[in-house]
């Protein structure tokens, strides 16, 4: 795919926009891509969730947190460069097959990435989602201006620099557990577990997107497994990355 643009959108995050050669394949929010890293130092592809798409211009956006050599190399891609990408991979959020009316989209850090695409998709289905994002500080909550196009945005920060001080599960939005009929969450595992625990306690359906270390991305190498109640260890890349929390063995 062709690099259309690549620019920093936060202290350690880049927004990479790629153009697909031809019509975009159908993609579901929550699915991901495997990007070949343009560096001889890095062997494996990097799994990156689909952040947003533009079906008119066949563009796919990736919000990438720079955490190591692989993501650093991706951040250095220039307009006009080519990147080898496998997409779409995995299973996304269930909004196309499960009825949802009042969704809450919870994101932490770069975990907000797939929730923009999800917001876009929900908006196309006439549903206005609520976003609840957490970060250490305000500048680590990425792309706020994009999310508010599709729904209401609430925040928590650990230092109180934006929204309410604390973690997402402490937000006053969650005082009324009847407000939402389904939660879609993506972010660090401790946050996901806290959200999942809240959802269980309040009998709210909840889906989480996991970020495991992957090699192949297509269910062949069995490296990125998560233990499930129904099937034991399954590949996050192929069975996930989105799971209904009822399948996960987190709380039993």
């Amino acid at each position, binding site marked *: 795919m062709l690099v259309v643009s690549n620019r920093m959108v936060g202290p350690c995050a880049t927004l990479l926009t790629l153009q697909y050669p031809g019509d975009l394949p159908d993609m579901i929010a929550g699915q991901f891509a495997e990007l070949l890293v343009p560096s001889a130092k890095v*062997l494996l592809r990097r799994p990156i969730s689909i952040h947003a798409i533009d079906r008119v211009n066949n563009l796919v956006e990736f919000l990438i947190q720079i955490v190591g050599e692989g993501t650093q190399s991706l951040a250095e891609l220039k307009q006009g460069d080519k990147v080898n990408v496998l997409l779409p991979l995995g299973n996304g959020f269930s909004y196309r097959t499960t009825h949802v009316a009042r969704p809450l989209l919870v994101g932490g850090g770069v975990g907000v990435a797939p929730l923009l695409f999800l917001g876009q998709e929900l908006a196309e289905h006439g549903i206005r989602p609520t976003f609840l994002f957490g970060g250490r500080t305000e500048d680590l909550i990425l792309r706020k201006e994009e999310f508010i196009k599709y729904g209401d945005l609430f925040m928590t920060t650990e230092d109180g620099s934006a929204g309410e001080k604390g973690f997402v599960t402490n937000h006053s939005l969650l005082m009324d557990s009847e407000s939402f009929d389904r939660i879609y969450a993506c972010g660090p595992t401790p946050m996901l577990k806290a959200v999942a625990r809240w959802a269980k306690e309040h009998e709210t359906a909840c889906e989480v997107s996991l970020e*495991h270390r992957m*090699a*192949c991305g297509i*269910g062949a190498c069995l490296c990125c497994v998560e*233990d499930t109640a129904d099937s034991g260890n399954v590949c996050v890349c192929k069975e996930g990355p989105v799971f209904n929390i009822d399948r996960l063995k987190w709380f039993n």
Partner: protein
Amino acid sequence: MVQLNTKIGSLELKNPVMTASGTFGYGTEYADFMDINRLGAIIVKGTTLNPRQGNPYPRMAETPSGMLNAVGLQNKGVDYFVDHIYPEVRKFQTNVIVNVSGSCIEDYVQCASIINTLDDIPAIELNISCPNVKQGGMAFGVKPESAAQVVSAVRKAYDKTLIVKLSPNVTDITEIARAVEGAGADSVSLINTMLGMAIDAEKRKPILSTITGGMSGPAVKPVALRMVWQTAKAVKIPVIGLGGICSATDAIEFLLAGAAAIQIGTANFIDPSISEKVVDGIQEYLERHGFNSVQEIIGALETD
């Protein structure tokens, strides 16, 4: 037209390119990316008598030009393979070889005899070299006596092509190769992964749940090439070479070192259509150098 076909014992391959066990799933995972039927063979993931959950996550660590894995032979067991996987993979127009592993000799024998009954599985690869299981696996493959013991037991129960996959975690791999040849193996494949380790310095913890794991990828290629070269001189049975092959050139190096066929492993994760490209690349090399057959380059390394 250049002849690409080769033989492993009585097993005919349309070309010397196979995919390595544990890196190619059951082949079906790769069907979207390439024509599986163009390969000489596919070796499906390690199968054991009973289902295995494998090791806990994390199971993988990336290393310079390589990776460590600690999957630990996760699979649903041979009965599941027979009932659910075999009906699918037998449709491929290529050789489907099952990698067989076990924690004791009796498990290997039982698993092999069940697979012996499957008409469309012409060979097994006996895994006596998995570094990621507590019992069995590599334990059998690091001593000539125990390697020969498991191979001769399986030989009695299995009458098709028997390939034995060897561990590089030994002082002298030729000694093990000769022992399994003497015990009735039709071929040896080498190398399985090298025992390695990765540490997260910030957390002062190992990265893998099992602390150690098996290293693969381009970083191990020189070691694999050396071991294939040594082994090809030491045994009369065909040697299958693997370890870090990422291109047709890599594959040709193994053929020159004496391998009758090669396997592609970790490279499948980086380019899911690499094995088909390697077939094309070998053909192009043979044409460019004026060879009529791939047989002309097997063991054709010029050392003086």
